[in-house]
């Protein structure tokens, strides 16, 4: 059944991966020597430009993370030729700047957000796409309308809501749930899971129903086994988004023992030796970049889906 799920994922415009289809330039044009030379030059320029702008800053950070502060300040461009390596920067960032603890906090924030987002989006998408009770359209509109309301309107009241939850009257400040739950109210994620469920053939549901399976059984035994690819994309998007988040954890996790990496780095700025700060930034970068290198295809799929929804 896995071909079903991959087809559903590829349903619209995803990243190209084959040379079979022609693009703007025809094969005939490609054979002309002039076009070929120009094409090679332009593509070489694109490659070099992307390496210089996309890769070099991060490589520089990796090099500067293990360099002496004076060298970083006096000759930043010469760092790549510099023979001095200060590996102790990393150890100092890990222990003295507490990056080890802070990365642990970040992992708690990211994994909790992912779990909450998966539960909310899968159960909700199942109701909207498959069960479709009479009130489903109203719920659908209520969720989708949040896509179109500028986030700024709810920043301050959301903070006050977390300070004292209505009805329950408890405060979630310095509680990790304050980062998990608001992020789970994500209309875009629900939309892409719902579209994925929409592409699953109805016959499967009917067959299971005839076998006497109830709604929950159908979710668990028909939909969830098919959902690994979309769950992967959702998990990656959520982990990286919460790894990147800055303003919200700054507000709701003020205690230094709870701070995730972005908040801790901003606090380091200006009162730590430059090389230790850069080492801390390098350590902060490792997890998202490694995730991206391993799951490149899923990342680009997720980004392409954003386009399919937006277009």
């Amino acid at each position: 059944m896995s071909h079903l799920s991959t087809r559903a994922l590829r349903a619209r415009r995803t990243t190209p991966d084959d040379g079979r289809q022609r693009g703007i330039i025809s094969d005939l044009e490609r054979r002309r020597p002039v076009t070929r030379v120009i094409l090679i030059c332009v593509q070489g320029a694109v490659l070099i430009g992307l390496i210089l702008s996309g890769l070099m800053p991060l490589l520089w950070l990796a090099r500067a993370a293990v360099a002496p502060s004076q060298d970083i300040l006096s000759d930043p461009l010469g760092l790549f030729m510099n023979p001095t390596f200060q590996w102790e920067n990393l150890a100092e960032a890990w222990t003295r700047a507490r990056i080890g603890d802070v990365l642990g906090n970040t992992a708690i924030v990211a994994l909790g957000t992912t779990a909450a987002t998966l539960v909310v989006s899968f159960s909700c998408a199942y109701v909207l796409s498959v069960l479709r009770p009479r009130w489903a359209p109203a719920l659908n509109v209520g969720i989708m309308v949040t896509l179109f309301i500028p986030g700024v309107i709810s920043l301050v009241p959301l903070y006050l809501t977390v300070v004292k939850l209505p009805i329950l009257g408890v405060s979630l400040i310095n509680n990790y749930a304050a980062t998990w739950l608001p992020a789970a109210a994500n209309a875009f994620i629900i939309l892409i899971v719902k579209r994925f469920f929409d592409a699953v053939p109805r016959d499967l549901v009917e067959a299971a129903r005839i076998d006497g399976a109830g709604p929950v059984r159908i979710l668990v035994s028909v939909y969830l086994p098919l959902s690994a690819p979309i769950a992967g994309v959702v998990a990656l998007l959520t982990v990286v988004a919460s790894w990147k988040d800055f303003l919200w954890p700054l507000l709701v996790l003020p205690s230094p023992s709870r701070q995730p990496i972005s908040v801790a780095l901003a606090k380091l700025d200006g009162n730590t030796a430059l090389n230790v700060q850069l080492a801390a930034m390098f350590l902060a970068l490792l997890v998202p970049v490694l995730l991206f290198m391993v799951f490149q295809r899923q990342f680009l799929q997720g980004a392409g889906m954003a386009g399919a929804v937006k277009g």
Partner: protein
Amino acid sequence: LSRWIAHGGLASVLLALPAILVFGFFSWWPILRGVIMAWQKTNLVQAPTWVGWSNFEYVLGNPLLGQAVLNTLQFVVLSLVIGFPVPIVLAILISEARRGKAFLSALAYLPVVVPPVVAILLWKVFYDPSATGLLNAMLAPFGIGPFPWLNSTAMAMPSLVIQATWAAAGSTVIIYLAAITGVSPELYEAAELDGAGLWGKVWHVALPQLRGVILVVLLLQIIGATQVFAEPFLFTGGGPNNATLTVLLLIYNYAFVYGDYGAASALSALLAAALAVFSMAYFLLTRRASR
């Protein structure tokens, strides 16, 4: 009732409950409360009181507001001038590569996965205003600079925009790339029969086919750039001399520095109202596209 349960009514409610709860507590109620609070005086101790339009009057009377609006507009316009054409051109060029398309896309997307705080603090080092600063040292061989970058009122905002574009362009490139792949090759063939050259195919076939996506991305860029926060907050704190003070920074200061939640809500409501035009256009466009 038992029939309703047997028909899965109860299961639907229970399965929808997580979404209804998180949206209710953390999305619908805060949005509503934000509108209400604009007309209230709220602190965390006493019950809120209605104060009419006085929050709006107070916010609009702030002498810094005009500057913040102009700065925000400057940020938006500059990020469109730099950040709008670059991804389209890049996406078209990458889409025409025969080999290494995946590698080029990955390179373009790489900055997007960098946490903004890391990216901003890294660019802060690049923007070192001394002659030995990284960017100044790079430009020196061409006889340009050294520039004061973030330290000058004229250059601070463009410097913020350059970093913000670096950080965001990759995701736009991927969106355009996906859309270009969806253009049917027959259209190019038809254009060729009509005698169209390379430029003609880009201008008269590819770009018109991408019109919908381009428009939506443009709207989202405007909406996103207007709510810029991390860049001015971390790069400059709004300085030098308020040159990078944005509307969102003002809102942050009202709420989280001065504790004036009413004023912050009033300004948020004004900003959201200004963005409503773009939100409406975005809504209509996506609805038409999904029909």
